[in-house]
């Protein structure tokens, strides 16, 4: 069977990314302006911090529309911008859907977005590439890692995966 690409569920994650990036960008610009007028050297650190925070968030904001999950007979590729996880289908032991209990120690987690390795209080560390931080996460369990995704069409994604691999039916615990 051919490769099929599943888009991520829609969310307002982009809004929260922008909400963080833009104020820091504006504050950084404002501080640059003040620094050029007043020459307070103590502002330099604040300027670097502001721009240092704004830039990665801007990069992720731009990458967000590219989040998708590519499924073929041999592997699942989870992608968002420069972030890429390749999960061999044969290594997948279990796929579940559940809500997660968020932890404050996080890679990158906002309302409507979770990326990179994110620790959760109940299931531990999860490699996330999802448009939700904790609600309705599809957890993919392999021998070594746990991945969290949020395909827009979950039913089709699971049915497609099953048809390629084979496995047991749904059960709720």
């Amino acid at each position, binding site marked *: 069977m051919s490769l099929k690409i599943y888009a991520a569920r829609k969310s307002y994650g982009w809004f929260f990314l922008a909400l963080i990036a833009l104020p820091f960008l504006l504050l950084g610009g404002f501080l640059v302006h003040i620094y050029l007028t007043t020459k307070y050297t103590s502002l330099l650190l604040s300027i670097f911090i502001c721009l240092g925070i704004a830039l990665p968030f801007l990069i992720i904001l731009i990458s967000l529309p590219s989040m998708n999950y590519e499924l073929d007979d041999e592997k699942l590729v989870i992608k968002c911008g*420069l972030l890429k996880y390749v999960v061999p289908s044969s290594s997948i032991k279990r796929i579940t859907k559940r809500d997660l209990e968020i932890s404050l120690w996080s890679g990158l987690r906002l309302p409507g977005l979770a990326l990179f390795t994110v620790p959760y209080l109940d299931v531990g560390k999860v490699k996330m590439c999802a448009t939700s931080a904790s609600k309705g996460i599809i957890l993919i369990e392999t021998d070594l890692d746990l991945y969290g995704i949020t395909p827009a069409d979950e039913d089709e994604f699971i049915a497609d995966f099953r048809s390629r691999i084979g496995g047991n039916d749904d059960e709720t615990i």
Partner: protein
Amino acid sequence: MMKPSKTFLILIAVGFLIPFSLFPHVQAFIAVSATPDLDTVAITFVDFLEEEKFEDAAKLFNTKMAEALPSHKLEAKIGELIDKVGEFKEIVETRITEEKGYRVVYVTCEFAMSTLNIKIVFDDEAKIAGLWFVPVKTEGLHGIYIAALMATGASVLLWGGLVYWLSKRKWKYLALMLITLPFSTIVNLLIKKPVYELLVSSFNVSSELSVTMPLWFLLLVLFLSPITEEAIKLFPLVARRVRRMIDGSSALWIGMAFGMGFGVGEIWYLAWGFSIVPKFAGYPFYYFVGFISERMAVVFIHGVMTAVAVTGFMEGRKRLLMGYVGAVLLHAITNIGAMFYQLKFLDETFASLYLFLPIFVAFFIFEHLRKKGLTDQMHEETVLFSRE
């Protein structure tokens, strides 16, 4: 060959655009840096005035200025000024700006009875072309109050939002913050201040902290705030209605609310303290950026410290006492940086950086308490695929 994705190309473009957009500012910065250090000249001039070296001071004037204000006239002017504002104490800060094409350095100086800006105008050859003594402007609201408002807004949004979100959206915990809002002012004015004054007079030591003080006295001062503040933050537990609200899942949030309310109140108590110091008059709000960030961190730490004690309360009075002792120790650790700054062991930057340690410890404790409070409330799980 690997084909670069669109996203990657966009990233490269943005990565280049931002530095280029900053380039004019960097150029301006380099241009200014290349001019003579007017700050130093201005400070040297003020130092000469302070040391009454009026002839040396007048040597920094350009020709026109030297004719208009020779050293003996300068001496007379300074004499008149000292009569009005008292003895010179210290230079508070310098600020370079450009006015009508001239480079101007404002040297803010503290005198015994007032704070003044010495406005020094420079010509193209970095010679003094104009000199004024102007009062520090206090237009509108004091900068520290704007900073306090920003610190309060940011703390309530960030930490209040976090408590609201993690406690499964319960407003009542945020409302509990209101109870402890005035506690900082109460404990500082009615307990800490009199106790400190009593200690100072009883042991006949100076009220200003210094390394020459006995170690036991310094330890006493270090623990004065933690012991009194952690106790008053638990005061609402006296009310039976509050005690009844506390259970395994709410103890953490109730403790956080009491501590954070205290922390927000403390922002305003400190802001009031700053506002009555003459040298801070006229400082714009952005001068207090450090105050804003420090207070934001401290609001969270206050919350965690009280949460330690309140979650202990869940397990009996003995554990409440242990929790209280834990909170006092965490509070003392938090205050070490500020105390070392007062003792001049640490400069302002290192004292601020030190705050990262208690923040980290507080986050660790907070997560530990949350995990403990999770109990057996596991989320429902639907198995969509299984190998077995």
